[in-house]
């Protein structure tokens, strides 16, 4: 296990009997992830994909000793699901759900602030420690075990970069999608800190995009705390201000959050920024 998920992960799936939840449970099990149960209120006692289904997370944790939960429930139930997981002894919650109202996430974050729980997401692809566990929706076959940590605000763009690395025979320790929403449970800095102290990670790739100032903060953190090399890719150089580019978090507002200022901040602290996924892989490989 590099960071967050691995062989020790005992996963429950909130929303296991839904279309999305069911499909990805199957994919995760196939990848080798230890899925120990699922939760769907009203369906406790049934079985789904070979694991027991419970009505509440509390029951699921009591029965299965789960330590991690992944959430696929519809947006209007997601805040409740995250808080339920956090209240039931789960230590790591990954929320895949897209479209959660911002104020719901404000509420969730203020609820989590005094709890010992890490939230990844929402609106994220989850995370994969190649060869050990895939918790989320990343396609499993693109990964290769190795020593490069990945952290990204994006979904398919992450796959693109992972693929580019794997194509050049560069393996990954853990790939983490932190999500594209304005309010997320774990930021770049949270994940960079974990990679910095992870013995199985030798260098890190950071995939950012327009909107907010998390990449700039990450740059400060890299300058102050990181000894491992970081390579970056920032999407949205051509994005116009004032328009939301798909992700709720990807919007240049009040002149803040442009790709140019993020790239500048990262380069200023010695981070090399690739212009294409392939270029990122070349930098990581030491070719550039």
């Amino acid at each position, binding site marked *: 296990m590099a960071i967050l998920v691995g062989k020790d992960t005992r996963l429950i799936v909130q929303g296991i009997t839904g279309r999305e939840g069911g*499909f990805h449970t199957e994919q995760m099990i196939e990848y080798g992830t230890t899925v120990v149960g699922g939760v769907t209120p009203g369906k406790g006692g049934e079985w789904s994909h070979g694991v027991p289904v419970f009505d509440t997370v509390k029951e699921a944790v009591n029965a299965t000793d789960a330590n991690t939960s992944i959430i696929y429930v519809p947006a209007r139930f997601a805040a409740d699901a995250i808080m339920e997981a956090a209240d039931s002894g789960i230590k790591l919650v990954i929320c895949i759900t897209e479209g959660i*109202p911002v104020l*719901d996430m*404000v509420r969730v974050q203020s609820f989590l602030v005094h709890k010992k729980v890490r939230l990844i997401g929402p609106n994220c692809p989850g995370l994969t420690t190649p060869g050990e566990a895939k918790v989320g929706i990343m396609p499993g076959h693109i990964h290769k075990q190795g020593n490069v940590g990945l952290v990204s605000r994006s979904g*398919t763009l992450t796959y693109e970069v992972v693929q580019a690395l794997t194509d050049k025979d560069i393996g990954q320790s853990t790939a983490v999608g932190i999500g594209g929403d304005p309010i997320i449970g774990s930021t770049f800095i949270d994940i960079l800190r974990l990679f910095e102290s992870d013995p199985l990670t030798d260098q890190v790739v950071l995939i950012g995009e327009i909107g907010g100032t*998390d990449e700039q903060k990450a740059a400060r953190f890299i300058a102050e705390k990181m000894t491992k090399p970081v390579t970056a890719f920032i999407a*949205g150089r051509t*994005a116009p201000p004032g328009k939301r580019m*798909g992700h709720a978090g990807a919007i240049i507002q009040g002149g803040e959050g442009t790709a140019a200022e993020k790239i500048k901040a990262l380069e200023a602290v010695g981070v090399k920024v690739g212009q294409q996924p392939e270029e990122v892989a070349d930098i990581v490989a030491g070719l550039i």
Partner: protein
Amino acid sequence: MKLHEYQSKRIFAEHGIPIPKGEVATSSDEAREIARKLGGPVVIKSQVLVGGRGKAGGVKVAKNVDEAEELADQILGMDIKGLTVDKVLIDEAADIREEIYLGVVIDRALQKPVVIASAEGGVEIEEVAKTNPEAIKRLPIDLPVGLMDYHARNLAYDLGLRRVFVNQFIRIVKGLYQSFIDTDASLAEINPLVIIEGEKLLAVDGKIVLDDSALYRHPELVELRDIQEETSSEREARLAGLSYVKLDGEIGCMVNGAGLAMATMDIVKYYGGAPANFLDIGGGAKSDKVAAALRIILSDSKVKGILFNIFGGITRCDEVARGILEALNAVPTDVPMVARLVGTNEEEGRQILAQANFPSASSLGEAAQKAVNLAKGA
């Protein structure tokens, strides 16, 4: 979703914020009648969902009923940044002494709502942030605790407000914050909040932007949507569940995933092209969604080439390939295209396209280059 000034101000008024007396007119006759009822000078304000209405001539003061009719007639039908004015708000003109900015937004770094205030109202807050950042006061609110009187009072004194306005200001800040919370807004703004005769505060202009993800909780606000303010492409994209932003270039892009879509635009630019749009078909899109996306891209006459970039995770490449061909059947075109499909069922997808002699590429870089070249040749 943005609300019009008049809609925003009505919501503010329901939350106890003083606004000018006024009504909306869709004709100059109506405007005259409203001006007559209000008596005295009025302001005629175009109701369009873009900034800079004033500079564009969409806001005028009328001294009397005749002028009101005449100016309303001028403004109605006016084109402001591509939008046609079909409504004007007729407000009692206020005798403005001082202008204050007051807004509530989500602070992403603090992960909570923040009230922003500045004694330099009437201009955009971003402008003040550049020219006089000291003038901007920020009050972060802990959502579970809410906005207490003392928070607003501290803000009033920080702002240097004279004592006579403090209690009014507290009520207005609380009303604005509650408007923000009650409507699940991402922005609620009074600009300017003005000091008028009689030592009173009045919200003369207002703006609310709603959190689209929370609209399901507010059917009454969804009804306020002004569909005349959307282009037909935007409308079709919204109804098809696509994320679409029109840009000025010539390379249409269809991508799954927002980050990848932006990266694709960037790479098009890198290879000397210019993206015509941002378009994210989302995860697990089926062929009908692909067809809708293609129709939207093709409706832009500037488009000279189209690039499909699909990294199949949930999305299946064969579904996308079929969608492209189906859409081309329905919307025949001679705009050149190139597709790059990788990931889930990529082989099947490529075969489907190969059988239809559809050009494809294996890497994103290659695909972007091809698309740019095809567009230049077209």
